[in-house]
């Protein structure tokens, strides 16, 4: 007789699953309610069969924000675990699973409550069931990481990984994922590269060799490794890491695309260090394309990506395109922050430099005067040597050598005062002064 009820229960649960998969959640709800009733009647309200039916019903309630009904199921299951004393470790897993449901719904208050309950409970069984304790510590680490609480994240993940040494067999993929998050948290808190590199170097290949579809965590992990290699001057290693980051993030959800743009910008800087300017240019342009696709018109991310492209184009003398981009950058900053934003000084000055080189002198003079005015709005007012140098350049290009000499001399004096006589601009100005004197 009991077997026939078991079969009926299994059929109801299977039908509910099919209905859930096909988004017929009202049918699924009916199946599950019937399953709970059947299990409670024939196996008892505290039976594991009752739990088996209650659990998907609870998940369904939480999924559709029926929080009270969900907690009703939760309390029943929890009470049943309490009665079955030898299933404490399963109870801890249960708390973890429900915490993940809350986490996915961004209800972090409930997620933390459950994880803390799980942690307290897991302490009592840590010796026999270390795996579930590690699982809880790692989950806590993830949630703190997601909320940018890096110190707590580091504490939980370190403890989790430390205790994971006793877990046999060692679920490498789960712990490698935790190690990547730990490394990212350590990186965010500026912990030294020697500590972060080995964690990432050992953990990342575990994950990237496992999944055929790379994950966001892997992509960001490789990008972090790339940045660390880049800063350490290991540019070939950085290229590999950035390429792995790019290939992982390419396959991720559109919501991860901003990481891809970030990674391309870093990768472009690295390619410049490796002398591959063609690749660098393609990367900064791709970073900009992604930002334009993702963000509204005047978003700071687009501004930064455009500046990334101009930083690349200006030293290579591609002035026409740089002028257009900088005009757009200035317009965006003005729209967002007003015409007196102090950041405009640098961009107006750069645009003045470009206009001077394009021999669009009235525009150059206007924008350099604006840059100068902005520099004098600083507290205390600070004359900018670059602006003065660009006035010199403009006059020189216009053929007004006497005026150019005056500006260059003023700029030279300012550079020496502010940056010392070894500054790279000094030799540029000295050469320009010689040219102007010869042509005067």
């Amino acid at each position, binding site marked *: 007789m009991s077997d026939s009820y078991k079969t009926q229960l299994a059929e109801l649960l299977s039908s509910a699953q099919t209905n859930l998969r096909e988004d017929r959640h009202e049918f699924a709800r009916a199946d599950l309610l019937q399953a709970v009733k059947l299990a409670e009647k024939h196996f008892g309200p505290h039976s594991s069969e009752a739990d088996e039916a209650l659990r998907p019903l609870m998940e369904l309630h939480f999924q559709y924000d029926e929080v009270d009904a969900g907690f009703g199921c939760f309390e029943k299951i929890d009470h049943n675990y309490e009665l079955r004393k030898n299933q404490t470790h399963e109870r801890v897993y249960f708390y973890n699973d429900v915490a993940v449901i809350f986490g996915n719904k961004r209800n972090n208050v409930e997620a933390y409550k459950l994880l803390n309950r799980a942690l307290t409970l897991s302490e009592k069984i840590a010796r026999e069931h270390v795996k579930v304790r590690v699982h809880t510590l790692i989950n806590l680490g993830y949630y703190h990481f997601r909320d940018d609480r890096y110190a707590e994240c580091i504490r939980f993940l370190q403890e989790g*990984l430390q205790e994971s040494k006793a877990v046999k067999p*060692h679920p*490498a993929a789960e712990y490698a994922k935790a190690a990547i998050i730990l490394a990212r948290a*350590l990186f965010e808190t500026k912990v030294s590269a020697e500590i972060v590199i080995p964690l990432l170097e050992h953990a990342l*290949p*575990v994950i990237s060799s496992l999944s055929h579809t790379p994950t966001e965590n892997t992509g960001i992990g490789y990008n972090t490794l790339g940045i660390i290699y880049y800063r350490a001057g290991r540019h070939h290693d950085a290229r*590999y890491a950035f390429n792995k980051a790019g290939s992982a993030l390419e*396959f991720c959800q559109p919501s991860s695309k901003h990481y891809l743009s970030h990674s391309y910008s870093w990768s472009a800087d690295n390619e410049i260090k490796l002398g591959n300017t*063609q690749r660098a240019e393609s990367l900064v342009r791709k970073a900009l394309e992604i930002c334009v696709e993702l963000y509204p018109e005047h978003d700071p991310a687009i501004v930064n990506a455009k500046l990334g492209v101009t930083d690349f184009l200006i030293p290579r003398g591609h002035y026409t395109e740089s002028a257009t981009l900088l005009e757009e950058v200035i317009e965006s900053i003005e729209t967002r922050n007003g015409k007196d934003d102090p950041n405009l000084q640098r961009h107006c000055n750069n645009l003045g430099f470009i206009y001077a080189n394009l021999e669009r002198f009235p525009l150059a003079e206007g924008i350099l005067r604006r840059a100068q005015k902005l520099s004098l709005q600083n507290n205390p007012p600070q004359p900018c040597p670059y602006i003065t140098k660009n006035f010199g350049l403009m006059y020189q290009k216009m053929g007004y050598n006497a005026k150019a000499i005056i500006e260059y001399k003023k700029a030279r004096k300012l550079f020496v005062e502010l940056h010392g006589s070894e500054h790279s601009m000094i030799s540029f100005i000295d050469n320009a002064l010689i040219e102007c004197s010869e042509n005067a």
Partner: protein
Amino acid sequence: MPTNPTDIKAFLDQRQLKYSHEKGSNKFQSGFTTDNYLNAGGKNMFTFNIFCEDDGEIVRIIAPNLFSVPPQSKAKRKAVVWQTLHQVNWNCRLVTFEYDINDGEIRALYNIPLGDSSLGLQQLMNGIYSMPSALDQYAPDIVRAIEFGIPMEGHREYANRFEKFIKAWTPPVA
């Protein structure tokens, strides 16, 4: 005949793919831009050929000369490249990377064996589009094997190494 160049041409036209094809030939040539992969000229692109062979019973998509291992490379380096391609093929499944040990050419291959069934649009497009995605995903590992002799290994090796590392690891932050 299960398929013929006319079918393939119609599918490529339907998807508005750019290609070159000489009338009467069984070969189509096309190319894609890539995100990660760089060709020998340092550009983000590669070319591939589609062949209609064996009386239309098999369609082969071949991307030749993707990478090159200098023929004078030492045996150890060649072995590392072999191992890496083996691992890539294991992970990748659909696209196969082949290494000609004589001249060092590495190419990618996608076969569509038709037998007595006809070629479908989706079938052909799956083959074509799996090429750039496989290349972008695995190019960093293949290049690292060729240039630095660092092999791509299997998941188990990486997992064992990670386990050993964690066992010897001390939490860095007190």
